């Protein structure tokens, strides 16, 4: 086994790890050695082709189809240089004040999160997309909501020179999206941080990591790892775990920290989501333009759902439509006339929902759908149908009902669907990309895994900086909040690193 030594090792390169890397990188000038270990590959610009299966397989863990143990939901999270910021749409919102109040993390205020976020809004070019670059899929959402008297919001997004490929979730082929792969990691590397790709952390011991560097398979995309393939033992004065809400708790669990941290892996939330599709009489611009420009959150408190514009690729669309045969095919053949909305349920911490590990130490995610979550998804889908019809759609596909097609004149049926809230788990395609919790911040090990600065209780050399810190659902797209918290964690590390 080869050996390496660093002052600080960061595990993961997404919104959390990439941010910490940049914020600590000035320490390199003082002689500190810092490394980022990333399990996924770093792709060359020309390798972002926008092809659905090819890119999903390279950029996501398990191709974006990581299944929960109950096999009722898939989880999509990135595994590449830049983590999930390589595959997000760049949406950059901050949580409502009630979320921070409910989190009740000592000393953490919305004002502080906003202040820290401002830096990243500037660095990552967060802004509202210009009106003339917004496609009809998005415009129809706005038109439908306005006709219903509902207030839409426009997503600030982190893009620069967006050409409207609509391929954000497959990695921007134009390098326009400003994730940590384009901003924070390159800056960190310029300042002296080493980023080691294809490097999986197997386990941690006190101030030590055991990792495996994979060889680049023949013909595969991406650069080879800067390190020779093989197993390494790395000593580090400080370790920052930023592997995301699935992999961070799993790493700590397989490293044996569960015994002294009873809340490790608990508190997992995900914003379970489903895609609702409508057909218009005429083709609309849908697979060109930024896919996610608007949202509707006025029902987040009352009915626990948020709606977002979206447009997905053929396979994801096919998977999201329930049923099969001619009815399914007829919606697929209407692709150029399709409008889509993503319904996200604002789930809350539920004792059964947690991350554990299997016998081999691999992450296992348990997710039980509460009645509230099922109802939120159904009501969100019905609200989407109303928006579609208000925007002029001919028919809507609601995956949770049979028959799944709802015509424009079936308003009474829609009311009934909303009240009865039918939902056959295992039949309806539900996926989640906002994975949160598992290493929650709090006061003591009885209620949390870390303190308010990401310091793991009882292990001052070990920090967490990613969405796993969230004590409960953030209720909006999480990236900017993750970066703010990572900034907070990094600031404390800068204060303390000399004393370790």
């Amino acid at each position, binding site marked *: 086994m080869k050996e390496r030594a660093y002052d600080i090792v960061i595990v993961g390169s997404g919104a959390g790890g990439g941010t910490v890397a940049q914020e600590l990188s000035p320490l390199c000038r003082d002689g500190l050695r810092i490394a980022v270990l990333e399990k996924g590959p770093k792709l060359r610009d020309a390798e972002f082709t926008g092809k659905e299966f090819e890119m999903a397989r390279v950029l996501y863990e398990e191709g974006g189809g990581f299944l929960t143990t109950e096999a009722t939901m898939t989880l999509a999270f990135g595994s590449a240089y830049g983590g999930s910021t390589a595959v997000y749409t760049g949406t950059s919102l901050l949580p409502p004040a009630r979320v921070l109040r409910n989190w009740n993390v000592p000393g953490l205020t919305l004002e502080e999160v906003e202040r820290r976020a401002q830096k990243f809004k500037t660095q990552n070019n967060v802004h509202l997309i210009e009106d003339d670059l917004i496609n009809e899929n998005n415009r129809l959402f706005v038109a439908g909501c306005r006709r219903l008297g509902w207030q839409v919001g426009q997503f600030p997004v982190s893009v620069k020179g967006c050409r409207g490929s609509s391929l954000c979730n497959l990695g921007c082929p134009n390098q326009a999206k400003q994730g940590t792969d384009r901003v924070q990691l390159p800056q960190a590397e310029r300042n002296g941080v080493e980023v080691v790709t294809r490097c999986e952390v197997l386990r941690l011991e006190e101030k030590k990591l055991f990792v495996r560097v994979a060889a680049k398979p023949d013909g595969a995309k991406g650069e080879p790892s800067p390190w020779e393939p093989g197993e390494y033992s790395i000593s580090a004065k400080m370790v920052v775990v930023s592997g995301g809400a699935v992999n961070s708790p799993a790493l700590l669990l397989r490293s044996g920290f569960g015994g002294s941290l009873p809340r490790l892996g608990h508190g997992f939330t995900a914003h379970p989501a489903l895609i609702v599709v409508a057909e218009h009489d005429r083709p609309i611009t849908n697979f060109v333009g930024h896919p996610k420009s608007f949202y509707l959150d006025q029902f987040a408190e009352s009915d626990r759902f948020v709606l977002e514009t979206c447009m997905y690729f053929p*396979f994801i669309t096919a998977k999201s439509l329930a049923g099969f045969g001619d009815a399914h095919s007829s919606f697929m053949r209407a692709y150029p006339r399709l409008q889509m909305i993503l319904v996200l349920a604002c789930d809350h911490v539920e004792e059964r929902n947690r991350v554990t590990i299997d016998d081999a130490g691999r992450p296992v995610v348990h997710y039980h759908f509460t009645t509230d979550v099922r109802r939120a998804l159904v009501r969100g889908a019905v609200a989407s149908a109303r928006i579609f019809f208000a925007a002029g759609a001919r028919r809507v596909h609601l995956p949770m009902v049979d028959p799944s097609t709802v015509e424009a004149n079936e308003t009474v049926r829609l009311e009934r669907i909303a009240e009865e809230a039918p939902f056959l788990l295992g039949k309806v395609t539900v996926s989640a990309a906002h994975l949160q919790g598992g290493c929650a911040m709090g006061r003591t090990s009885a209620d949390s895994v870390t303190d308010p600065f990401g310091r793991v209780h009882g292990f001052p050399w070990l920090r967490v900086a990613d969405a796993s810190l969230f004590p409960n659902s953030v209720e909006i797209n999480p990236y900017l909040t993750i970066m703010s918290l990572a900034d907070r964690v990094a600031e404390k590390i800068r204060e303390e690193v000399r004393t370790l």
Partner: protein
Amino acid sequence: MPVSDRPSHPTSPPALAAFRPLVRGIACTIVPEAVSLDEKAWADFERLTDAALGDRPPALQRRLQLFLRAIDWLPLLRFGRRFHSLQPAQRARFLAGLENHVVQLIRSGFWGLRTLVLLGYYGRPEAAAAIGYHADPRGWEAQR
């Protein structure tokens, strides 16, 4: 088909190798247009499904194989014939029964199989183009 750098299990035969005719029959029920696929298109379909399944944990592959055996034989109880001998309408009724089954595990099993078939069919660029999907990295510029 491009090679991925995700770990697969190249030393073992594809998990679906022994089920090709059955999977094709299921695929033609799920996506009726699949009946017109030629051998090259089926080969593309199978390359995609083999690759996707090869990336998944071995236990999941074994569960899918078990589920396929059940689909092959269970129609005997209801229709007196195995799946491949059923008429198209009978196949559709049988699969709809799995999709809406009272047991969630069976619904999930069918969902997984259906997802794999949809990947094999719509994951092919030809199928995407046939439904009018023409996303282009050049975005707006390519549309004008």
